[in-house]
């Protein structure tokens, strides 16, 4: 999936299987990603588990779990708030669109989480105070934590190499971990579809094109669109909402210059 980290880095990752997204003293979020096509390196989120840890007189420990075709509007124990404690309503689940869009407000840690099912797969977005992000007992012993540290290098997919490949299908594929481009979706069609929903050619737009080319599934257009919409709602600095890829000299240009 595509990841926008707490530090506004944008990555496209493989991260197949279960990975921690967030892990601090208050909250633990884990995602499970599965390949979108047999043999493809591109994966999408099929399961999401959020654990709100027991906190003072506010909330009991609560677990939220969403899977493909199952986006509940309640915690695993059937409740919709933080339990029986005095401040239980400082944790609340709100169903925005049945089976498609859920918002979880955790006021006691100033955190908002949005979970959606778009097409078959899940999307996740969070707004969290820096203080909470950094509230960890022992930073050194903390494992990989995608929202904070991003994906490991060996799990990242080279977006630009993939795109160059897609734009010039006759050129031999670059030696990169890019997934194979299926021949079901022409590049021009993918660009047109994504432009309709995402007029700014930022990384959300690029992600959209990538997803259409790798899967042929037009639902991913909406996934990118909603990810940007969630960013609009949750990002504190509207000037940093759109992210753009850094320019890189193509090998041909380097050769010509030489």
């Amino acid at each position, binding site marked *: 999936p595509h990841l926008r980290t707490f530090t506004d880095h944008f990555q496209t990752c493989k991260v197949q299987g279960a990975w921690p997204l967030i892990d601090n003293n208050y909250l633990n979020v884990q995602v499970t990603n599965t390949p979108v096509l047999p043999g493809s390196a591109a994966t*999408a*989120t099929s399961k999401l588990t959020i654990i709100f840890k027991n906190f003072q007189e506010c909330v009991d420990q609560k677990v939220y779990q969403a899977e493909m075709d199952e986006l509940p509007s309640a915690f695993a124990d059937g409740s919709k708030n933080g339990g029986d404690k005095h401040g239980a309503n400082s944790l609340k689940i709100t169903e925005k669109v049945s089976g498609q869009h859920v918002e979880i407000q955790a006021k006691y840690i100033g955190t908002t989480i949005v979970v959606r099912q778009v097409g078959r797969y899940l999307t996740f977005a969070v707004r969290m105070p820096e203080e909470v992000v950094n509230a960890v007992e022992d930073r050194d012993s903390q494992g990989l934590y995608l929202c904070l540290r991003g994906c490991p290098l060996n799990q990242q997919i080279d977006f630009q190499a993939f795109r160059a490949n897609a734009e010039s299908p006759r050129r031999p594929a670059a030696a990169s971990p890019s997934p194979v481009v299926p021949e079901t979706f022409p590049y021009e069609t993918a660009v047109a579809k994504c432009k309709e929903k995402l007029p700014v050619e930022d990384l959300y737009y690029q992600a*959209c094109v990538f997803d259409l080319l790798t899967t042929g599934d037009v639902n991913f257009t909406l996934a990118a669109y909603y*990810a940007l919409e969630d960013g609009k709602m949750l990002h504190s600095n509207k000037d940093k909402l759109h992210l753009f890829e850094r320019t890189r000299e193509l090998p041909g240009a380097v050769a010509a210059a030489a």
Partner: protein
Amino acid sequence: CKILKCNSEFWSATSSGSHAPASDDVPEFCAALRTYALCTRRTARTCRGDLAYHSAVHGIEDLMSQHNCSKDGPTSQPRVRTLPPAGDSQERSDSPEICHYEKSFHKHSAAPNYTHCGLFGD
């Protein structure tokens, strides 16, 4: 870490928490703050890394300064508090301030910095 107990006792003692007391109630409020401070000191060691503990300590200092409370003086005894009935689905108006991040953690300092993380697509 027993900061929860300290918070509850302070809330019980004052009823209004950290809301400004009427001028007649200031001595009683100061006494409650001194008790609260004493309680936090007792639990300081085990609460060393606890965000709520540090917020409480700063909050107490600010409130003592605002109400000109002396550090030495009488302390108060906590009052018995009546909880609202279980199953109340509405927002409880007397929900502890600690359960509202923006009110409790940053009442006396600048607005918190928020960060965003998102995961989508394939």
